[in-house]
């Protein structure tokens, strides 16, 4: 995501106002980021109620700790970090028997790569209505492991850079890159089932 210096300055001014207790300024921060934070929380927790809690807790915490926001990173990256921690806590609470972390070791074996190889229609999304498409895309993401979901949403939907995603998720740059690759390949595989050209298979190209 490329922000011009003017946008960052403008946001710094809004944050300064919010720090002083200007509710209008905080409302503006909410308006800018609440939908993205909610989407991310929804993808991590997979539960609307939890996602709403995460959204609320993240913004309340952000307000409480606004003094600690240094302005070296973007406000969005900072609040994502808070929201991701809240979302993971929710997950842990629900799955009390096992800890959930974005830092789990991942299977880098080849078994998750390319079982289904088929070319797609030219504009595959046009085969489906907006709602159907939305459902297909969302359920494909939800089929990924949590460690992949957050990385994919931040990098490929929200448009954060690899470095920003690493900062937001408290992961190393290579960890973000390897998770993003697996996420993209797994999604490609899932979507191929919906979008492939009729009667097509790998051997058509051989």
């Amino acid at each position, binding site marked *: 995501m490329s922000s011009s210096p003017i946008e960052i300055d403008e946001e710094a001014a809004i944050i300064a106002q919010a720090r002083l*207790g200007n*509710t209008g300024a*905080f*409302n503006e921060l*909410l308006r800018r980021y*609440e*939908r*993205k934070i*909610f*989407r991310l929380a*929804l993808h991590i927790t997979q539960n609307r109620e939890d996602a*709403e809690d995460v*959204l*609320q807790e993240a*913004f*309340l915490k952000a*307000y*409480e700790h606004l003094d600690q926001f240094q302005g070296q990173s973007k406000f969005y990256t900072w609040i994502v970090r808070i929201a991701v921690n809240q979302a993971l806590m929710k997950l842990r609470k629900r799955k009390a028997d096992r800890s959930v972390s974005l830092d789990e070791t991942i299977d880098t074996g*080849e078994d998750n*790569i*390319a079982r289904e*190889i*088929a*070319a*797609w229609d030219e504009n*595959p*999304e046009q085969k489906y209505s907006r709602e159907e*498409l*939305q459902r297909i*895309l969302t359920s494909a993401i939800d089929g990924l492991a949590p460690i992949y979901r957050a990385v*994919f949403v931040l990098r*490929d*939907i929200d*448009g954060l850079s690899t470095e920003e995603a690493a900062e937001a998720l408290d992961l190393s740059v290579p960890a973000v*890159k390897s998770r*993003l*690759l697996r996420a*993209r*390949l797994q*999604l*490609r595989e899932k*979507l*191929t089932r919906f*979008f492939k050209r009729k009667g097509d298979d*790998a051997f058509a*190209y*051989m």
Partner: protein
Amino acid sequence: MLTCKQFLEELSDYLDEKTDPQLRQKLEQHISDCPNCWVICDTTKKTIQIYKGMDPVAIAPDIHDRLMAALEQKMARKT
């Protein structure tokens, strides 16, 4: 000559145009020789494009209002 596995490991960087020219040339050589990797590359590119256009989820107005009310309460306590 790259193997398919080596190609796939570099696929993300290739699609993000983050590879150096030398590696890029090798990757392009691989897809022109390997129909399967060409398909994987093309459909992964399309996957990323489709998600880029995805709408953010709508959040119910009452969620925004509840959040704002909770914040205002907190702000009032602080000042």
